């Protein structure tokens, strides 16, 4: 089936997120305006205006009412997803890199970059979805992060841990209560670009510049599967309905020696999750893929590229005939 091309961002995409039902699609880019689209048609609904820097990440509450975004302008913002109104701003002294709402939406983890001598940090804040007027900026726990950036954050099983991936290629799980490091995994040799949790929370997938994606046990951080790609991997996602994964990435503009878009490896690749074998690929982008997200119904996924385009890829019958 033909992909749906979403034109709206003028700068490279950074992050893509579906709501729980899959009817809404949130995209973040280096331009300052996160954008909302209809998940099925790709029609643009509107933008969230308020950030003054690249928006690195976002998360949406289960009831689709509230959007949390994090930006290089050193703020994380809470928005009314429907009206586009920013109703609360968390202000930090460092650029915000990653955000994640806890299961149930009562808490959020916000990571900040190392900046002016201050190391990276993970901030746990409380979110009040019931009564927005009660929202405060209070950080209930500030965890000093490792050397270098924390590039991604996820909540672990039962909200007991937060799992982070870093510039150092290390994946860590932290006790959300006391901020202690519980587990460390050094399976990746280069920067972690993306982490994405499975539906049931038992495992998650990582994407790294070391040209691999890996699946980890979300409790023990044991590496269970490895997918070798022939390009740096910027994003990797798990199919919610099949034992497949999708990864994307590509040589960055600096190291692409030829002009051919083929040489840059800008296609998304589908692998078998259990057998770790490549199944197929979907071409389209003119630059590296920076972001991927599966529609929760598992029948389409969306990619966002360095080229500024968002593409919704419906998966057709021939895909579902693959064993």
């Amino acid at each position, binding site marked *: 089936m033909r992909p749906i091309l979403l034109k709206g961002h003028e700068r490279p995409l950074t992050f893509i997120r579906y709501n729980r039902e899959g009817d809404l699609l949130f995209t973040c880019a280096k331009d300052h305006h996160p954008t909302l689209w209809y998940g099925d048609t790709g029609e643009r609904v509107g933008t969230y205006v308020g950030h003054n820097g690249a928006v690195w990440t976002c998360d949406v509450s289960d009831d689709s009412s509230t959007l949390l975004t994090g930006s290089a302008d050193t703020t994380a913002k809470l928005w009314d997803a429907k009206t586009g109104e920013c109703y609360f701003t968390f202000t930090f002294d460092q650029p915000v890199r990653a955000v994640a709402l806890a299961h149930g939406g009562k808490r959020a983890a916000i990571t900040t970059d190392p900046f002016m001598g201050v190391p990276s940090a993970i901030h746990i804040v409380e979110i009040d979805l019931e009564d927005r007027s009660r929202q405060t900026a209070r950080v209930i726990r500030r965890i000093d992060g490792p050397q270098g950036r924390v590039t991604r954050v996820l909540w672990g*099983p*039962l909200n007991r841990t937060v799992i982070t991936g870093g510039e150092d290629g290390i994946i860590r799980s932290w006790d959300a209560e006391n901020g202690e490091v519980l587990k460390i995994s050094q399976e990746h040799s280069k920067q972690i670009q993306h982490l994405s949790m499975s539906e*049931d929370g*038992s495992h998650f997938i990582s994407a790294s510049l070391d040209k691999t994606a890996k699946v980890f046990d979300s409790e023990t951080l044991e590496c*269970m599967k490895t997918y070798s790609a022939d390009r740096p991997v910027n994003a990797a996602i798990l199919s919610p309905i099949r034992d497949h994964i999708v990864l994307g990435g590509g*040589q960055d503009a600096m190291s692409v020696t030829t002009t*051919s878009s*083929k040489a840059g490896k800008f296609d998304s690749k589908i692998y078998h999750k259990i057998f770790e074998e490549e199944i197929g690929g979907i071409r389209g982008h003119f630059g590296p893929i920076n972001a991927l997200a599966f529609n929760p119904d598992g029948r389409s996924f969306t990619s966002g590229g360095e080229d500024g385009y968002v593409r919704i890829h419906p998966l057709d019958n021939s895909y579902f005939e693959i064993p």
Partner: protein
Amino acid sequence: VDWNKVDVESVELPRDEFERAGLDKPVEAEIEELKQESGFASVIVVDNLPMIAEAKYAKLLSVLTKIFSQIGTIREGGLLMPQDDSKTSLGFAFIEYENEQQAQSAVDQTNGYQLDKKHVFKVCKFDDFEKYEKVPDEYVAPPPKPFAKRENTQAWMMDQRGRDQFVCRFGDETEIFWNDPQTKKGEDVYTRTHWTESYVQWSPKGSFLATVHRQGVALWGGESFGRIAKYAHNAVQFIEFSPCERFLATGSTHEPSKAGETTQVLVNFFDTRSGAKLRTFTGPISDFIAEGQQGLTWPVFKWAGQSNGKCGAFFAKIATGAISVYEAPEMTLVDKKSIKLPGVVDFCWSPADPILSCFQPEQNGGNVPARLSLIGLPSKQEVRSKNLFNVVGVNMHWQSGGDYFAAKILRTTKSKKSTYSGFELFRLREPNCPMEVLELPNKAEKIVAFAWEPKGHRFAIIHGDGARPDVSFYSMKDKQGNNNCTLIGTIKNKTANHLFWSPNGRVVILAGLKTMNGQFEFFDVDAMDTMASVEHFMATDVEWDPTGRFVTTAVTSVHQMENGYHMWTFNGKLLYKYGKDRFFQFLWRPRGKSLLSPEQEADIEKNIKKYSKRFEEIDEKIRNEADSSAASEKRIKEEKWRNWLESKKAIRETQAYK
């Protein structure tokens, strides 16, 4: 130097080079010896001199100085002729040269020099002298060594499934594989890290793999890929086996230490089996290149082709206005003199016979025309020659069986403003070696590539000036089988700049390398039809296996991306791919001629059905086994994953979310 201020760590040389070379202990011990030698390596001992009194001492000294300073520069105070108490000389002298090479050439050139009737120089390296002195006068029989049978270097030729081997070099690894078309992968044979310091090369019949190190060359082979021999040659750069594998030439160039001096060339010839150094050629670079040539092109010595399977061989090098032909194993100049060919710039041997093709450009400002000649050895008789006019350049092409020879001639028009091409074709198997001229319909077109069909009568030419040139096929025989060079056909607008014939002929790959990004057309010349058009993006190399059943295309490390090779069948079907970063080399292991008689071979072809049935059964079984083992592996993986997922579910359900 204030050593306190120097960070020794930072200037330390890389890890021990022998360790890096992966050579084992015995070599290391020998290298130690070499190192000890180096202090006196440039000193020679001249023995058998006249013993003379003080009065004649100065005279002899000046004679010696004259003789030995012709060969190299004698260091200041480097000539010592000891005398006894009565000031009578002792009959020998020490001479110290600037470097070891000069010392070596002095030994090579003056040992046996007749000074006068009574006195013949005995010259050796000082180190050798010392070595021999240590030898006890009485012969002591060495303790008997346990008899170790040498491994069979042909063992790989006996693969039950008739597969071929190849070697790959990537990163620090050198790995040998079987090409396995049934399981569609390269099956590991042998791997070694840091096996070579620069490159590897198979010997012409595939018996040995040569590795190249700073100290010299090592040969490996047999089933265990153990070391079979080694040849010392410091800073060796090039190697070249004789076609029969019995001789090995190693070469190096040495930049001058002082400005104003010329680059020196050193070439050693070894007997591959005994390891003995048979002869050394050394001298300034000008002794090894044609007049007016810039820089050295290896091989400096080219081996003559051999179809009779004998182990003697001719080899030749170009010199100013001459070609010097030597004969192995004697390593002497044939007839004790070179073949005079004024102005000669290039020569080639027939791959099958001792016949040289030589080209001499115009001499005397055009008064003597350019000349193309074929010269037979050892008679040095001209087989055929031709004078040529207005020639700018010549490229020589021998057909693999030595049956035909083609020279591409680039000429200028009378106005000298433009050039055009033509071919001179020679039939070596016909009496008097008849010759034909071939010109393309548009002779002003650029000739991009020319290639003979191996073991055949045909050749292919890529011609045209544009981005999509044409390819023409010709046969040396017409439809009736007569000796007439005939156009078979021309195919237009091809993305091709290189030709790769299958070693069996019939199939040729029209390859678009470099600017054409890796386009390949597998072409059947019998049917004049394309079998497949494929792409291997940015491919740099094409290599046919020795049998013409398979062919590889590879991207080597000249590109950063997509390094590795693709394995194809002869008709352009992709068998499998292999990717490795920093991919340097891919070489199929060559095979010697089959030991079967032509009658036996014909017999096999006649009864092929009998074999076919069995081979198909074997292949089927292998494929099924591979399939079923892959399937069961998958089953196990899947079961393990499901069990794990189930165990996680059980844990999760017992605990409530916060």
